[in-house]
């Protein structure tokens, strides 16, 4: 699909329509398109108007799914602090709970819009945003956490078993965090696509069946 000279990027329109409930997608996307052409394109130029449109799409996502993203971020922070300080009890619960939350967000996406694509998009977007937070978190906390970790027997033993000869604890833990950032991008991509597909299919079918039985 080619982009019209006075239209927002095609992909942002696609994302917007996929995020909105089926019965409101046309009117709400029409309102945004009207505002884009009538007000923002003349006032801000192409780039500024595109940026404004993108922010509106992000707002639609945030207004519908902020709860799930907040839950994922809370789970991650708890899990990471637990891991760094070695409060071992709930270490393996984090990833499973996270996948369940991504699945729930995708279910809501499919249910709300009655479209599988919405569930998939929700799954991918929540994972992407979570990953951005994780990357920022790890790059900010690796040093203060390392000051605690270098006194913990668990981390000292991990350092001894996997560090290169002569490598300091600080250097090792920094690259451990970089590795975790890269690996989590892969793991989250797969989780987002899989949970998004399952949630999108189940949510959209469940909503259609519900509406059929209610009619």
């Amino acid at each position: 699909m080619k982009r019209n000279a006075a239209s927002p990027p095609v992909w942002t329109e696609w994302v917007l329509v996929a995020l909105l409930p089926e019965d409101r997608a046309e009117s709400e996307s029409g309102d945004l398109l009207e505002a884009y052409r009538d007000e923002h394109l003349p006032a801000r130029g192409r780039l500024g108007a595109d940026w404004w449109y993108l922010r509106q799409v992000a707002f639609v996502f945030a207004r519908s799914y902020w709860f799930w993203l907040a839950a994922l971020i809370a789970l991650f922070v708890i899990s990471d602090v637990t891991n760094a300080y070695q409060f071992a009890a709930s270490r393996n619960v984090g990833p499973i709970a996270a996948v369940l939350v991504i699945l729930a967000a995708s279910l809501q996406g499919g249910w709300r819009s009655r479209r599988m694509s919405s569930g998939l998009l929700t799954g991918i977007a929540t994972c992407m945003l979570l990953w951005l937070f994780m990357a920022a978190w790890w790059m900010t906390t690796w040093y203060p956490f390392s000051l605690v970790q270098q006194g913990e027997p668990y981390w000292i033993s991990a350092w001894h078993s996997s560090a290169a000869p002569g490598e300091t604890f600080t250097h090792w833990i920094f690259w451990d965090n970089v590795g975790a950032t890269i690996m989590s991008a892969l793991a989250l991509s797969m989780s987002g696509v899989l949970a998004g597909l399952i949630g999108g299919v189940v949510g959209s079918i469940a909503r259609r069946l519900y509406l059929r039985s209610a009619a």
Partner: protein
Amino acid sequence: MADILGAFEQAVLLAVLRLDEDAYGRAILRDVQSRLERDVAPGAVHATLERLEQKGFVTSRVGGGTAIRDGRARRFYRVEPAGVRALDDARYSLDRVWRGVGRLLKARSS
């Protein structure tokens, strides 16, 4: 008086009332922006309209599109009697809160 409207809900509901037959998303947004004298996200207006509709304060119907929106349908809103009552209640509560304060404010500012 179970559910007092918030300030933004009042602004949206009053815009629907004011615009009458022409109350659709974009027109409501413009009205709210000009009355509040600040930038408002279209999504905030849409979410509020959806909520007001769920509460039974407004109803909507789908109407024709225009060229500027590539013919995409417009959703027109109408305030229902429950919405008018909710506005009355909100105004009544606000009046009660402000009653007698005018004189005090005048005394303090002079």
